[in-house]
């Protein structure tokens, strides 16, 4: 004789509906994950400069996004939200890491080094990289985020503007201001190049 179970039809239907909705949400989120996961990682990595930390932060942001996915189904809104939350989480982690280790903030002109001949040589020099990293970290957050997003492959300025919910003019002006501020902080390299 077959065993039977006692169920309440309405409750069982409700449970089934909830599970089906959950499964649909999960599928939809996985699509977004495939699309936006690398973006989250890149934003975190560009702030933290460390693979493990970047993965942690990107994962945390994606889990938060999953919890709030019902209100963020629109793809463009989801990307923007994800970028902002990753950036904020990465900044928090970078700041807490900075508190732990006292960094030397040496902005003095480096003493006697051979001047680089080309932009590639200059960018490749570890000294320039260290200065560049510090200069970028010291930029205001709103300028830094625009600079990093605009530098990512496949992002037009219009896309960056849509992602951040800003007018295109604001993105352009922030981009210009950010690059100029970086150049001001790295002026010592211009002087040394001129002296060649």
């Amino acid at each position, binding site marked *: 004789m077959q065993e039977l179970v006692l169920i309440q039809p309405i409750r069982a239907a409700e449970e089934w509906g909830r599970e089906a909705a959950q499964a649909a949400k999960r599928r939809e989120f996985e699509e977004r994950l495939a699309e936006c*996961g690398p973006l989250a990682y890149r934003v975190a990595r560009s702030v933290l400069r460390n693979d493990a930390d970047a993965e942690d932060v990107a994962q945390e942001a994606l889990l938060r996004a*999953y919890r709030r996915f019902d209100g963020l189904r629109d793809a463009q809104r989801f990307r923007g939200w994800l970028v902002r939350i990753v950036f904020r989480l990465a900044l928090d982690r970078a700041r807490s890491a900075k508190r732990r280790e006292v960094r030397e903030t040496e902005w003095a002109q480096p003493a006697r080094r051979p001047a680089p001949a080309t932009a*590639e040589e200059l*960018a490749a020099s570890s000294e*320039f990289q260290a200065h*560049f990293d510090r200069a970028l970290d010291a930029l205001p957050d709103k300028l830094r985020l625009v600079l990093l997003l605009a*530098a990512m492959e496949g992002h037009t300025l219009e896309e960056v503007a849509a992602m951040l919910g800003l007018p295109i003019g604001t993105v352009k002006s922030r981009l210009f201001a950010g690059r*100029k501020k970086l150049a001001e902080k790295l002026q010592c390299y211009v002087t040394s190049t001129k002296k060649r």
Partner: protein
Amino acid sequence: MLCDKYKEALIEAAASGAALPVPVREHVDICADCQASIVAEKMLFAAIDSSLHERANSKCRGSFASRVETALNKQPKSQRAIAPAWALATATAILACMVFGAQAFRQHIRHPQVTAGAEPKLAQANLRLSKPEIARKGLSIGKALPNHHPRNTQPDLHVVREPEVLVPPDEREAFAKFVAGSQQTQGLAQALLHQAPAKEDSFPLELIQIAQLEIKPLESQDDEQGRVEK
């Protein structure tokens, strides 16, 4: 000294990649120092862009997606956000107020003479007022009359209970799906069974009018009938 005047314009031109304004260009053409300056500025901006590109385009490891999926699987099934402490505190305060309010209300009903104080006098005085007086004084009937809330002391015996059915364990999901489907189409079925409301006003239809109708004798049919008779 003269070159300092053009320094800002040189930096801006190097940053934006735009052409130099005519007076600046004329100066740069004759000034070797400014020529070197603009070359160095352009080189710096190129290095900045290159470094930004490198920093912003790091590739994530292949294991990252699977790592996130594993973390997602560990998430609790119910995705209700955990309420923050302030929300819990507010909810508790509201609940406490409601409980105390309900208790005070019950006491007021049980012993109206204790809690009401001077109210009965006012109520009795108001009872003696005529309707125009009540209207003039801006009193409502409800306010003028003493509150009377007959309490239902009988327990509510109409407990709504959901029916239960016995199903084989392997058909449980299919049954739940069937019930959910029937619930979804319930509204449609009800709409189909209900008679549509008459909407005479919304769609006024005019009777079709035929101006002239010419009726011709069916000659060909008569001919055919005659042939058959023959």
